[in-house]
């Protein structure tokens, strides 16, 4: 349809609102959240840029209550939970999901109280204009941009700053080295869910919900909520070294671009992506087989991600000690690494079902 054609019948495209109705208020959508959506909302809202994961870790630790036999935090800050399996011949399975999120770190503060920053993780500076940064102490900064002498089309981090509404440097509520996440309120628009850090946090929720659904697991299962994933998968390898699992599966967001002018073959609502390769790892054939067979047997939808454009927690896990059989599931997410990451409820559901199938398989 051309633009001209759409303009001919505007009435059909724009529903009429009763301006007095409560349906326009911010509170309305959240009132209808399911318990699982409410969990996603809590996780998405939690603060946890790479290296500053304490708040989100404490939230996940609380959510693990009643689900795990042992919970600990390692020297790196990874949260490691164990659910013991029953029966002989059980294996040691590690599931990993990233706890941290992208963000920025204050690098210096000028005399007028504007904060300069650098990026934590794969943030596109384009997505920052007009967005807000939130610090651990709750302080909010607005991303601004130098306009004098700056080329219009390009945005470099050096030309951006954070305005915390401070009159001078000594009035600033944050210091050099403080990390901030982006803000972006969680919403559920039918099955489309969006919010900041949603991809990673939904991956964490997949692990929690998988355990919640399984009364009994056939194997010893470690759920590892990894730190510093967004800055180059720094935490996951340490956990894998300590646990020495027989097999590991990583659950992490995968960039879906099923939107106008998009550039990947992953789509929302088509099931979890079984990763063949990412930037730093070829997923172990044995682990891929387990995922594929489980999906087929249970008639679960899945997609194949032949080559992910980012690396992830898989590579350092696979390379730990003498090598660990490692597979990866990608949760399709649009607008990855922006304040509005969008996932689809059915993909989350099918990822959970797929993992439930894997963990219930006694002959793994």
């Amino acid at each position, binding site marked *: 349809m051309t633009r001209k054609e759409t303009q001919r019948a505007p009435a059909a495209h724009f529903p009429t609102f009763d301006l007095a109705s409560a349906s326009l208020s911010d509170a309305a959508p959240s009132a209808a959240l399911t318990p699982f959506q409410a969990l996603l909302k809590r996780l998405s809202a939690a603060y946890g840029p790479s290296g500053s994961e304490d708040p989100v870790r404490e939230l996940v630790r609380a959510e693990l209550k009643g689900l795990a036999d042992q919970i600990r935090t390692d020297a*790196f800050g990874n949260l490691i939970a164990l659910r013991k399996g029953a029966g002989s011949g059980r294996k040691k399975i590690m599931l990993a999901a990233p706890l941290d999120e992208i963000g920025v*770190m204050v690098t*210096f503060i000028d005399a007028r109280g504007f904060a*300069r920053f650098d990026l934590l993780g794969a943030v596109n500076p384009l997505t920052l204009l007009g967005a807000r940064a939130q610090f651990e102490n709750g302080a909010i900064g607005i991303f601004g941009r130098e306009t004098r002498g700056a080329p219009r089309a390009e945005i470099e981090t050096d030309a951006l700053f954070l305005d915390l509404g401070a009159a001078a440097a000594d009035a600033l509520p944050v210091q050099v*080295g403080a990390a901030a996440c982006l803000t972006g309120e969680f919403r559920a628009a039918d099955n489309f869910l969006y919010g900041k850090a949603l991809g990673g946090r939904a991956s964490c929720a997949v692990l929690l919900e998988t355990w919640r659904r399984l009364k009994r697991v056939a194997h010893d299962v470690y759920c590892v909520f990894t730190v510093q994933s967004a800055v180059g998968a720094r935490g996951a390898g340490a956990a894998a070294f300590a646990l020495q699992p027989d097999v590991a599966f990583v659950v992490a967001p995968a960039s879906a671009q099923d939107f106008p002018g998009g550039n990947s073959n992953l789509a929302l609502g088509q099931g979890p992506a079984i990763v063949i390769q990412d930037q730093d790892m070829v997923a172990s054939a044995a682990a891929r087989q387990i995922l594929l067979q489980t999906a087929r047997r249970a008639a679960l939808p899945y997609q194949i991600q032949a080559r992910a454009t980012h690396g992830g927690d898989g590579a350092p896990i696979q390379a730990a000690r003498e090598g660990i059989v490692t597979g990866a599931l990608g949760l399709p997410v649009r607008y990855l690494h922006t304040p509005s990451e969008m996932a689809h409820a059915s993909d989350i559901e099918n990822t959970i079902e797929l993992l439930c199938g894997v963990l219930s398989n006694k002959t793994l």
Partner: protein
Amino acid sequence: MLLEKLSNARGVSGDESAVRALIAAHLQKHVDEYRVDALGNILAVKRASKRGARAPFRILVAAHMDEVGFLITHIDRDGLLRFEKIGGIDDRILPAQTVLIGAQAVPGVIGLKPRHLSTESERKQVVAADALRIDLGASGRADAQRVITPGAYATFATQFSTFGDNCARGKALDDRAGCALLCELVRENFPFDLYAVFTTQEEIGLRGARVAGHAVAPNAALVLEATICDDASIRSRARAAQSFPPRAQAPITQLGAGPALTLADRRLLAHKGLTRAIAETARAEKIPFQYKQPLVGSTDAGILHRVRGGVPSAVLSVPARYIHSPAAVISLDDFQNALKLARAALPKFADALDA
């Protein structure tokens, strides 16, 4: 002065034996164990002076022995040497540098066409390293072959000296300053097992530290470094930028403002507890220090914190102007304060991790 000997010692990444020998001679009087591993790292142990009730606490303190330099790749027919850069060296600083080549320290000069014969545009261009040659003063290939074989390493020829307001200049202060600090630290008695690790091949990808960290399996790590100090160049940049609105700029570190404490760099988000312990110690002991501007540069800690099950790691640096050049400049006050601070803060590490 040990720092002087260390700066003058020649040890390009992969060829650290001369530096290692110098450090080994010093360590012998002070450490309980000493060994050199397969990658050439020195692993020395100074056991805790008093055994407490707790299990032995191991702190790995690292400084890298290697420096940036050159590898001779080929001798041309006319006796000039082709070379490759080892580590990060800016092509702009190469022409007309004097260098020392191989174990015999054969002198050479990196040559360039004279100004008289260069065109206006040539004078404004940077000549790429692969177009430059080292001149031995040899009459031809055969003459050069008598003193040099391809595979020899070359360093800048600068000799260390002190100057100015208690400053020092010399080559390789990144990271011989750290090596000198660590050599001083092993003289002390500590309530923990000090693993003094002098690493190799840091400048070409933190290669030695990986295996050293694995072998030691420490409870915590501190890396002693010499880091970027751009206070002088920022002033000149600001002047040069007067016609264009200069971006708000702050130096990465400042000379003479005390040792620099890392919050985060390109490969490390420093352990918050250890970093806080160092800062609190400095304040309590009234030792000046500064925070290094975050997310710039990287050190051996980028690997050390990831070995085995993870190692809480911190970095303390001596600010050094013009690093990776023939003449880095440090403040000896910063150096002494780094030593004081490391000495006072290390015993606090165990409690900082418990907290």
